[in-house]
């Protein structure tokens, strides 16, 4: 700003106490001009600003104080409420595997069925003695020739004479003999064996 006049009075001091310097003011290497002394101090100057600053301090202090009181875990505990953490976002992990159909029924039927067929065959072999009894006593009562007839050829081979005793067990007994094997065999042919035993 005074660069135009500077060359004219290169050695003129701008302040009584300003040091003499060979470089002109405005020269890049010239020292900066001293800060002007202000008779009124900075505090005295902006009383309004000072009040504003004090008010801001007070408000800030009170605000941060309250925030600390509210956010403090100890403060939360003092209020007797449990300091819970927010629940997990997203889908839960399943509590258990989905109930599946039982295996037992499906599998157990198959081997048992096979086993029963074998035992039935065995029964027809071991019961030739009974078969004649059925033929004698039950023939007039129970027609059912279809179910009995398969047994007949088998029953023909063993000695019928050896079975006098079965006379004491004439046919009326069939209903009480519901029993032994066919619980889960499920085959329709099993009925004839139950009644015959």
């Amino acid at each position, binding site marked *: 700003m005074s660069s135009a006049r500077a060359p004219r009075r290169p050695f003129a001091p701008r302040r009584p106490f300003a040091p003499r310097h060979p470089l002109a003011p405005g020269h890049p290497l010239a020292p900066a001009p001293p800060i002007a002394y202000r008779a009124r101090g900075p505090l005295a100057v902006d009383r309004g600003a000072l009040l504003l600053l004090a008010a801001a301090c007070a408000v800030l202090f009170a605000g*941060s104080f309250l925030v*600390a*009181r509210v956010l403090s875990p100890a403060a939360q505990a003092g209020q007797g409420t449990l300091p819970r953490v927010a*629940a997990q976002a997203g*889908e839960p992990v399943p509590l258990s*595997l989905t109930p599946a*159909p039982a295996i037992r029924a499906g599998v157990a039927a198959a*081997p048992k069925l096979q086993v029963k067929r074998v035992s039935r065959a065995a029964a027809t072999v071991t019961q030739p003695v009974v078969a004649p009894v059925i033929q004698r006593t039950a023939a007039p009562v129970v027609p059912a020739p279809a179910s009995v007839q398969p047994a007949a050829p088998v029953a023909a081979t063993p000695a019928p004479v050896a079975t006098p005793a079965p006379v004491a067990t004439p046919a009326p007994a069939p209903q009480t003999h519901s029993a032994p094997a066919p619980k889960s065999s499920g085959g329709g042919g099993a009925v004839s064996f139950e009644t015959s035993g």
Partner: protein
Amino acid sequence: MARLPVGTRAIAAALLVVVAILGYLAGHRGAPAPVGVSSSSAAGSRVVSVADVLLEVPQHWLRAGAPQSIPGLALEGPLTLAPGAASTAGLVGGRSPGGQASPLPASFLRTLSIVPHAEVLTFLGGQAYAYTGVRIPGYDRTLNLYVVPTTSESTGPTLLACYAANGFAAQLAQCEQIVARLTLVGSTQSDLAPDPRYGGQLRGVVGALDGERLALRRQMRVSATPAGVGVLATKLAAALGKTATSVAAIEPPIAAGAAQASLAAALLAARSAYQALASAASTEQLATYDLALARVEHAEHGIDAALETFALIGYGRP
């Protein structure tokens, strides 16, 4: 202010920051002090030590002569505090048996018909699990449980139980306040808050297994021959083994490490059980087959129990 020099404005800003910090510190110190940290506990209360925690209990909460028993909860060093008759309302505290993947003892879980909902609580010294409103069939008390896990494998977690009969809700709330002000002693903890990302990974793996298992079990149901069942059981065993490997490959949060190990072990046990079933089906021996079936059922219960553990550490339904 706008006319103030830059230096003055900087000083003012620094002053405001300092004032804010001082205000926060003053507010933090002015908050109610946690119990047990200093001797300045509130008047009319005393500090009681239970396993790994210190409790500040009101003076009228007295120690019961005989510990109150809660079905299924066998605690070490049990302590009962009650405001009156211990049978109606109070607090039971002690240490749970160690070496369990679940925060709640298995003996206690067996008494429950519903898996309790878990929440995570944060205290000054660490965190705890909370299970509120727990109902035990045949036990007519409202039960709130709080479990403070420990990082030690040899010792079990600290368990606190607030219980109250009907009409004693005020005592239950007072017990909750006691728990809310507990101080953890000398145990460094990991973060107990569930990790949603980990939960998602686990859910995906378990869900895939469940779908495959269900399909194979349906086929087993309708399979007419033991040989068919054997083939399907072998397939399911392979799926279980693959899932166990996938589960083990997931990096768990520290709090879920034990539960994950338990799940992986349960999956491997189920794989062995299905392999045994396949073997029994091929031999067509009914007794062996029945034993293998029972083993399968037991192993699948093991998987369910391991999955329940995840619900108990916060990965259940929110």
